[in-house]
């Protein structure tokens, strides 16, 4: 493997992790924490450190919903897909977000300004329907409020 400054940095970042010690996901979390996502270049480094195949590591990255392969947007909107949100108009919220931002789930607007992510219920169902803007729960949202929110985020972007 060709060693570059970037791969050396990843190497250092995950040096504490060992093969066969339940360390793959913790290593990927650490990479994602540092870069905001798991860059393609990091996968061979993680694979070598943990004595795993690159395909095996890539398989894990794409298996888990919270590991990202695209850069973290400046503003990330997590749309809750849970049942309480659905019952109270969550689909309206999703349609409004997608229409205003012009993107679908797991996509970012140009320049990675705003991104949409389909999230799983975290049990703050008292605030349904809701989104989490950079981790902060916002709800209960009407469709009109969602449109104002998305326009504002898009305008600021």
């Amino acid at each position, binding site marked *: 493997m060709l060693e570059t400054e970037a791969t050396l940095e990843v190497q250092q970042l995950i040096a504490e992790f060992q*093969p*066969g010690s*339940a*360390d*793959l*996901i*913790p290593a*990927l*979390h650490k990479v994602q924490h540092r870069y905001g996502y798991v860059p393609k270049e990091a996968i061979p480094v993680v694979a070598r450190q*943990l004595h*795993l195949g690159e395909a*095996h590591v890539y*398989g*894990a990255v794409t*298996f*888990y*919903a*919270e*590991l990202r392969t695209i850069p973290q947007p400046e503003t990330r909107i997590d749309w809750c*897909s*849970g*049942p*309480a949100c*659905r*019952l*109270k*108009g969550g*689909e*309206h919220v999703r*349609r*409004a977000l997608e*229409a*205003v931002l012009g993107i679908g789930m797991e996509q970012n607007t140009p320049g990675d300004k705003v991104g949409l992510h389909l*999230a*799983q*219920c*975290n*049990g*703050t*169902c*008292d*605030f*349904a329907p*809701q989104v989490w803007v950079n*981790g*902060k*729960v*916002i*709800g209960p949202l*009407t*469709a*009109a409020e*969602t*449109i*104002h929110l*998305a326009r504002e985020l898009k305008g600021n972007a």
Partner: protein
Amino acid sequence: MLKAYEELRKRAEEAWAAVERPVRTLVRVPVATCSVPGGALETLDALQREVRERGLAVDVGTIGETGLCWVEPLVEVRKPDGSVVLYQKVTPDRVAQLVDEALARDGVCRDLAFASVGDLAVEGVQPLTDVPFWALQDRRLLARCGVIDPENIDHYLATGGYSGLAQALEQSPEDVIKTVQDSTLRGRSGSNFPTGQKWDFLRGKTREPKYLICNADEGDPGAFVNRILMESDPHSVVEGMLIAAYATGASFAFVYLRDEYPLAIERMERAVEQARERGLLGDDVLGSGMKFDVEVWRGAGSYVCGEESGLLASLDDARGMPRIRPPYPADAGVFAQPTNVNNVETYSCVALLMQKGLDHYNSVGTERNRGTKIFSFSGHIREVGVLELPFGFPFRALYETLYPEPWQERPILKAVQAGAALAGILPGHLALKLTMEPEVFREQGVIMGGGGIVFIDDSACIVDLNIMFSWFLEDESCGRCTTCHGGTQRMVEIFRRIASGRGREDDYDKMGILGQALQWSNCVHGSASPTIMLKSAEYFREEIDEHIVNKRCPAKVCRDLIRYEITGDSPQLPEAAAICPTEAISQVEASSTGPAGWRIDDARCIRCDACREIAPEAVQIVEALAAPVTA
């Protein structure tokens, strides 16, 4: 009792006394996932600022959540006279009023007062035990939630915490297992496997090291039972694991905690750290020579990792694909070593059982299921929250309390969905006959599950709900079994087709075939995935038929079967036009096709409902009544 424990407890009691009998007013704010969105952190900040700026002789602290989600942000005020008052919905802008009336002088802020706690009555404030939601409960597992500071191990110790471990260490591991078996405790995740028997399997294995897993991957949408325990009483989970480790001979544990619960991760990590500092974890637990440690392991977003063998695969550095069994975890679990997997609530139950003893634990519940179970409630109800109920509690009493209005004014309880996407769905009239016990649910062909209960009224469409659940199951299928990844895809296709008006009479036959084929899946994710579909076809056939035969969605939810139309006039119409994200609303001149006025261009309309929210008297949802579409 162990000397090391006695010393810890003694030290802790001093710290706790300052809370129980404060020398000056003590204000505490629940900081938890259900209170933070309502502004609990801002409220806490504002309280600290007010107290500092006014130079009040008041202490400010934090506690865990009570489970009363709908009154958050909650604030508890403890006075030296022994009175304790809970104030509800104390948003940051109301803090000044609370400080004026309840802290700056000796009084009660009546506008915000919710309930009084404890034996001392407070004039004009209802006791908490009179709040209908609260009164349903028998709080045992939740006894410390909303009472102690979950980040303070002393609070846990002083309220009897870790005494269960101390008791266990003075018995033989076999006796501990016998106590667990006598309690009838069964896995609280929904699996209902006898916990004592599981422990006995691991006890019998001689291959070292042995592992424990705490399954904290509470991925069931609408369930937040384990979250409250981990956030508001994390040490009870650690203690339960310690007791299990002693009984089974395990030396290390992983808490597999879902990524979606960042605060629970933080609190559990802190609890483990504190337990280590106090000698409760490590090479010599409480001086007994027992060696045990815990790692909080953060998941990465996968529902199927809540399935025990998927979880183990995930820990073993791979995709979380459930394995073929046997071997079972007791023979070959994590790293192919003997392993025992229990969920969060199960471990908390063990801590409670050992602290309070078998008689106390068994004093409530039914013959088959002793003790209590925690449930979380969401959906179409007023009071979203968490309750601890004895097994066998009648569902009807629960529903009537969660919906305090008179029966006539209550929306129709169309359906109840317990135990999330794999567990099934029941029509309201059958759900009201249930009692909260796994066997009773099973008699109806559904599963009680981990405790998440979703109430559904008649504003929901059963076809739409099936699209949601089957899509979720398709998305979360690990992909190993063709029956599962292909079968769940077919489920989505069938319901999407029905929702779009292209349903066929023989779709019911296809559901039946799918239901059978899915049984051949390796794990429960596949085999249980058709439950909601089949129950829907059984109980909601009339509604599905409306979609298939008459191309109508009675609840007016399915987007292809409805149309938004401007049927009246409203001064809000210009605003409605402006909000439309697809510019589908415009003003038209009079022409041969109709008079002047506002129109919705149906081809552009995405059915987001924003215009109707703004101008409800002018915009209506009408049936699209499309000519029969051929598939």
